[in-house]
């Protein structure tokens, strides 16, 4: 029996009678992580990994009916053994392991295989069927090392600061922003954040993740010389808004895996693009799939057809799952209200 099927409401576990990251309101939802396209409002009951509780409450409301489960701990629901395992994507992100009548399925949500210091690193979970994302499912996507990227960001900031220009770095407010904060060299200058970023920093700090000191950009008066040395983290939606005017002359950049391509970088129209992604690159996807030992792979959101065809040519039984998950780096995805 299939432990997960695609239904109009979302990915559904028939024997357990619950959904994983449903996109329409349902009674029982297991949430892999707090990004807007995976964690939506209106569900009757939520289950998520313990480190993700703060995020989920801050995004969906303090009043949601939320149950948490530490990584690796098991619970049994309608005869299905369920446990959550780190996905390395953002704070609290989890792969959902389901076991029923000797069959093991793992739904991985979004994942990244390289450890980044702001969330528990990805752990491969052996299974018969693995549900994988495919956001960067093309062989052109191979990430440079994080060290190289952070060195690039710090060098860009330092050069701007020496020229008396603010450095505005656009990035997704949840996950990416904290990861960047973690890699910045705070000796270069002050770090300012947009109002969409600060509440998430608080959740990360509460969870014991070390982030350098940040200031809310709105608290700094216009024309304060401090602005010209600062690095500013803001969501992409702030670009071109009147909020940007306070920085006077600035250099801007965007941090995303898509910045690997020159066309995407130019389309974004920023001075610099930094290739920093919270998703697995092509070698990462293939490594993760291989590590599970799964013979069957269900591919969701991204380059679905490419990855399905490639895996089939490698001798696996790969199929497509139609989902409504998006890509948080894409500005078309609406920014969460915070």
């Amino acid at each position, binding site marked *: 029996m299939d432990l997960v099927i695609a239904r109009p409401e979302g990915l559904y576990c028939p024997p357990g009678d619950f959904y994983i990251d449903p996109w329409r309101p349902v009674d029982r939802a297991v949430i892999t992580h707090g990004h807007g396209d995976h964690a939506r409002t209106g569900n009757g009951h939520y289950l998520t990994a313990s480190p993700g509780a703060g995020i989920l409450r801050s995004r969906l409301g303090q009043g949601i009916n939320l149950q948490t489960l530490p990584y690796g701990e098991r619970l049994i629901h309608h005869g299905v053994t369920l446990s959550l395992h780190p996905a390395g994507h953002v704070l609290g992100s989890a792969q959902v392991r389901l076991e029923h009548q000797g069959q093991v399925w793992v739904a991985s949500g979004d994942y990244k295989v390289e450890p980044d210091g702001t969330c528990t690193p990805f752990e491969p979970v052996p299974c018969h069927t693995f549900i994988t994302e495919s956001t960067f499912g093309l062989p052109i996507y191979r990430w440079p090392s994080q060290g190289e990227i952070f060195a690039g960001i710090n060098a860009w900031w330092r050069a701007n600061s020496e020229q008396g220009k603010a450095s505005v770095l656009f990035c997704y407010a949840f996950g990416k922003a904290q990861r960047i904060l973690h890699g910045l060299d705070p000796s270069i200058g002050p770090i300012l954040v947009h109002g969409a970023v600060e509440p998430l920093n608080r959740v990360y700090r509460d969870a014991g993740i070390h982030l350098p000191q940040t200031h809310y950009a709105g608290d700094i008066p216009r024309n304060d010389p401090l602005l010209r040395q600062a690095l500013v983290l803001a969501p992409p939606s702030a670009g071109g808004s009147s909020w940007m005017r306070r920085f006077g002359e600035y250099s801007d950049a965007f941090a995303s895996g898509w910045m690997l391509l020159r*066309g995407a970088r130019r*389309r974004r129209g920023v001075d610099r693009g930094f290739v920093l992604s919270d998703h697995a690159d092509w070698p990462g996807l293939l490594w993760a799939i291989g590590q599970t030992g799964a013979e069957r792979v269900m591919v969701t959101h991204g380059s679905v057809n490419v990855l399905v065809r490639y895996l089939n*040519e490698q001798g696996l039984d790969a199929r497509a799952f139609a989902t409504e998950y998006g890509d948080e780096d894409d500005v078309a995805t609406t920014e969460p209200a915070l």
Partner: protein
Amino acid sequence: MKAFATLYLRLDATTSSNAKLEALRDYFASAPAEDAAWAVYFLAGGRPRQLVPTRVLREQATAQAGLPDWLFEESYQAVGDLAETISLLVPVHADGSNEGLATWVEQYLLTLRGLSPEQVQQRLQPLWAQLDRPSLMLCLKLITGSFRVGVSKLLVTRALAQLAGLDAKRIAQRMVGYTDISHRPTAASYQRLVAAESADEHSQRGGQPYPFFLAHPLQAPTEQFDTLLGPPSAWQIEWKWDGIRAQVVKREGQLWVWSRGEELVTERFPELHSLAQTLPDGVVLDGEILVWKPGDTPAELAVQPFALLQQRIGRKTLGKKLLSDAPVVLQAYDLLEWQGEDWRNRPQHERRWQLERLVEDHPLAPVLLSPLLDGPDWADLARQREQSRSLGVEGLMLKQREALYGVGRTKDMGTWWKWKIDPFSVDAVLIYAQRGHGRRASLYSDYTFAVWDAPAGTQGRALVPFAKAYSGLSDEEMRKVDAIIRKTTVETFGPVRSVTPTLVFELGFEGIALSKRHKSGIAVRFPRMLRWRLDKPVEEADDLATLQALLA
């Protein structure tokens, strides 16, 4: 190669002209002359013909990356640029080659031309293995002749001028013909570009034309012209011809005809050859080459559609029939050199006066004097402009009477405006979409548009494609259209998708002609999207009758 790749990255990383200028200066200040020679050539738009067939490059890259062909193709579709795709897929060197650009181009790349595919493959692998990722991408762009970076010739000229301590116009003059296919850049040719001024500079120029002065589009409403431009009397006003912009150079008994792309086109226009006898020496005319058939129609209706001229451009040999079907003239509107003297720093009206004397005094059969228009006010001129379409012209040119003849699109020496008529327009339906290249890679940005083949209410009427367009939308609109295309896809054929017709756009175009090659029987010129008609359902898009009416 690495130094040039670093320059490329710096130019690519910024949209600021000053930052680009700085990057160019830094590069030229430290590059050896033989490398700088090639850098100027490529940056100013020079392109050697493709050195290796694309197919061979693809095969080599696919093999080296260890990928199936289809996956290479998918990757290419996502990247939208072959050189970049290959550089992302094949193993590269961590550091990259420090050998100079000239060595790479002359010894490693140009020598690839004409080799068999097997020989090319043997040569490519060791070449690629020496390069880091940016250098490899650049090297591939040079091989495929697709090198482009957001730098204008003008900016290169300015950088060299600053470095050499010369006037940018002098550099521009020396650069004429530098990117011509027949010219091979060398250390000596670079040194000539940046050398100190010499006394015999003017007499050394042979058949060289001057850099063309270009017009800016004028888009303000007529009511604002008085404020923007002052009275019409301050302007020299002419028709805007729709032909080939050209300079006719007559020096030392010889004649040269240059197109705007600084291409020598003397051989293509035998009608002008008699000017070698009739024009005095030391004359350079600026004007427009047009197909001109006075016949029994009034003289002002003699200009023929650009399509006819286009047929001539493509031909290697010009047969008798073509020459009699599509004879050309030069509508002259400026005089850049007179009696061997550079007249570009004289005001427009003075150049015009002398041009009129020249045409009057010499029997210059193929040269016509582009007529001047006048009117008491801009409203009157706007009315005259309304006749443009029936006269076969594109609108009006406004040239400041005091303007000097600048270089390219400069405005500091006086301005030329092109005041074009509004394009034709129809409401058309998007039926196919294809992913774009470069900045639009991965986005469905190139569209095929259709109109109905019968009026509304006709049973079983169908959409017939008639034009492709890919410009005119904002990035924001394009993203939205891209999302709709993905949701409404009916079928996918390679990179092309057919969609359920839901999107209506107002398409603008400059010209319309009958065509046997198009299913609709109609071909349009320069089609582009004027706006997205969110208010119009597909049923209300135009039909073929609308297009046929425009043909009249």
